[in-house]
């Protein structure tokens, strides 16, 4: 089945997206096998988008049981399923969206899996992990040479980290006769240049090789190259980046907890902020703890921490799913390597860490 070409029914069903990425890409989607760790609200969105898109097989692992608070961010479950494993409660409705996709569920703790069990996946997606867990899944991903994406939502804010290891993707850009094989930006190279004509206009199609960094090896080298002066750093680096990285560094694990019990220890949190400013070679003055404005911002940030919020889930889930699809079909550039959703300002900057 998997090697056959698309059926007429599939072509009709996926018509509007085949017109975007082509038949061959749709076929590679059908042959893909994806893992989603943790069915948080943003996990739900990623699952929805990938299932609609027609990937081959989707495995979802989460050992948490459905709580009342989940009802406001999971549209695959009903109230009377509270207490069941989240994945079991959701399976039927996920499958119902697209019967062609093979949906598998697993209600073990993903940390208990043997490393061999990850081998069959083409991409590993995870949501709601903290730093220690991201480091662990990234280690597995590196060991097996499987690209990984992790993301989370904290109220109106969000976070995405991609470690796609090393990949190739085609992009279409304006024609430029001076373009040469070689550096494209700090973390990617042009390895091939094709010329194409579209509606009488000449374009370049570039094959880009993208290199990603391990979670454990993130540092401030690229930020320093891009923004050498402190002034530039203050202007260009959204402090939300440091805030979220520091939130993930908290010792306590919050995913799956009752939101009323999520209490962020402010002293520990501020310590992580200082550590991260050091780690990424940023001036301590980037964040002024004594500033009244910052204090107000901090309070809102803390209130939003570990809250699921549907609009943010929808955005982060859309961006992550598109990065997954792009990675499979080798088109467009995935986030390299961190993006944050700043819900206060409707912004999504990308940083090279």
């Amino acid at each position: 089945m998997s090697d056959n070409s698309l059926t007429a029914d599939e072509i009709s069903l996926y018509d509007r997206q085949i017109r975007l990425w082509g038949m061959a890409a749709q076929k590679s989607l059908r042959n893909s096998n994806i893992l989603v760790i943790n069915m948080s609200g943003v996990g739900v969105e990623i699952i929805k988008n990938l299932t609609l898109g027609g990937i081959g097989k989707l495995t979802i692992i989460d050992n948490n049981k459905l709580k009342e608070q989940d009802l406001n961010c999971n549209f695959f479950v009903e109230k009377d399923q509270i207490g069941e494993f989240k994945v079991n409660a959701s399976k039927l409705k996920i499958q119902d969206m697209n019967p062609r996709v093979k949906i598998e569920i697993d209600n073990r703790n993903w940390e208990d899996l043997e490393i061999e069990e990850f081998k069959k996946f083409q991409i590993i997606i995870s949501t709601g992990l903290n730093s220690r867990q991201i480091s662990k899944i990234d280690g597995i991903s590196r060991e097996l040479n499987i690209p990984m994406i992790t993301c989370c939502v904290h109220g109106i804010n969000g976070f995405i980290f991609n470690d796609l290891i090393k990949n190739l993707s085609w992009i279409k850009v304006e024609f430029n006769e001076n373009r040469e094989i070689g550096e494209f930006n700090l973390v990617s190279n042009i390895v091939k240049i094709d010329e194409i004509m579209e509606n009488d206009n000449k374009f370049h199609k570039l094959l880009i090789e993208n290199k990603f960094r391990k979670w454990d090896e993130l540092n401030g080298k690229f930020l320093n190259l891009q923004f050498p002066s402190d002034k530039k750093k203050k202007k260009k680096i959204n402090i939300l980046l440091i805030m979220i990285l520091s939130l993930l560094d908290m010792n306590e694990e919050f995913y799956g907890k009752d939101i009323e019990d999520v209490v962020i220890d402010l002293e520990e949190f501020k310590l992580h902020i200082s550590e991260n400013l050091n780690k990424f070679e940023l001036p301590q003055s980037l964040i002024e703890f004594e500033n009244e404005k910052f204090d107000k911002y901090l309070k809102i940030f803390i209130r939003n921490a570990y809250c699921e919020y549907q609009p943010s889930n929808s955005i982060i889930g859309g961006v992550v799913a598109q990065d997954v699809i792009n990675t499979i079909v080798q088109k467009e550039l995935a986030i390299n390597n961190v993006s944050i959703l700043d819900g206060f300002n409707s912004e999504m900057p990308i940083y090279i860490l």
Partner: protein
Amino acid sequence: MAVDSYIKKMFGEKSSQFADAKVLLVGAGGIGCELLKDLIMMNIGEIHVLDLDTIDLSNLNRQFLFRHKDIKQSKSKTAIAAVEFFNYKSKLYAYHGSVLDTNLFPLSFFKQFNIIYNALDNLEARFYMNRMCLYLNIPLYESGTTGLKGQVQPIYPYLTECFSCVPKETPKTFPVCTIRSTPSKPVHCITWAKDFLFSQLFSNEDTNTQEIDASEFTNEEEAEASKKEVNELADLKKIIANEGDNEIVIKIFEKIFIADIERLLKIEELWKSREKPSFEQIKDYDHFFKDINKEYLTTCKDQSTLEEILKTFASSLLRLTDRFKNNENIEFDKDDEDTLFFVMSASNIRSLIFNIPTKNEFDVKQIAGNIIPAVATTNAIMAGFSALSSVNYFLENDNINRVVKSKMVFDSSSTDKVVNSSKLIKPNPSCSACSIVKGIITIDLSSTTLGQLRDKLIEKYNYGDDVEIMTLDSRLLYDFDLEDNLEEKLTNFINDQTVLLINDSDEKFDLIELYVLNSQNSEIILPELNIPLKKIKPSENENDENDDDDKLLVDNEENNDIKVTVSLDDDDDLVEEQPPMKKRKF
């Protein structure tokens, strides 16, 4: 713990702002399904969903509330039914109908909403909703996507750019002579087959009414040839109505693909710098017309052989002829196989004659049907930003603060951001929609005289002397010369939904537009309007520079409390990308 635990923690007391709101979602398609889900999970009090469309198979790759069994059902009603199991806090209402239908949705219908979210797929409805929101002064969250591109624009009437402030790109059109005489691309042949040939043969409109403008052709000879084609096609229509199958196919084929081309070949000027059309590739046509069949070949969608092309032409022509004879009103529809196959095969025959590459069904359907690529992810992202951006509406107490905090969002192709965000921009002072302040007047037309209306206007808006009252279609109802009308009841002049223009006789205040809502036994209720001072036309300004300076100053001050231009960074090496207004497609 409760269903709304997260929202309570995030927004505290302000959570009730969401619960108390009543919003309208216009469109339950790609963005609409996503937005409906987002709004429900934001626990908005009342959500009304409006759509005229029914569900199609090709919607199911992204409109996640619809299933195979729902095909042909109403989008709005199916969507509302589909979300019910995960809806805990919102009251939901579905309407199946066109937003443009004033019987179903009079202006008074839109009046009840705090915010309107647009999730539309066409410009006409977008412009219309934009106007409605201007009359009602309701914030409009506008959004759209095409493939991986998309944008969200919050519109706060008269404070920010409205949907009409920036001209929109109209669909690309081709010169008449390219389509009719000198095609060089597949799209030219497809346009010819669909807009000229198909409509000439099967449309019920009188073909002779279509005038040809000679100036659009290379020379008079060409215009004359074209005119002849049209007249003869009218004759062919008679053939279709009266003759047998084989005659129809042969006669029509020889007329449009042989005789008409021969006529073009005689106009030498056309071929001086172009390759001449040639019959070489189709010369064996009669061989394929020997056994004509109304059943399509199984491989007809490929269009890779002359046989596939010609037999598809014959079959589709005959099938359409049968339908035509049954008095069916046939219109081109990309999902109507006969019409699509006819356009596909006819355009491919023309392509063979003009030595242009032929196209298969998939490609012809896209071009002829104006199909726009669409994916779930972009819709989810843009719906998410529309919903997220509107959070400012609920958290802030007045429109000025809402405007300052809201952003316009659009796709980005640069590697340093996932989306572009820009602050909202002030309205374009020469915008055809929002440069004239609008409002609604509620009035009992049968019991109120024109004089009473005039007096009320002068009293409410502090006009210095007198006003002129006109209708939008330029009928003058009252000025100081028309005193006689003052005693007459308004029913003698205007109806419900008439739009009135009120002009200040002193020329101090700018024109305003009032939309009439007729309401029996109602007092005259005039809207609260912030009427700007009369704008000075640049040409007049040059002549008497000093004269109106103080007026201008006041004018500027009024607008100054919302300084909402894009801020430019001083030491910025990256120029902020501007919204893709001009290339915006929907």
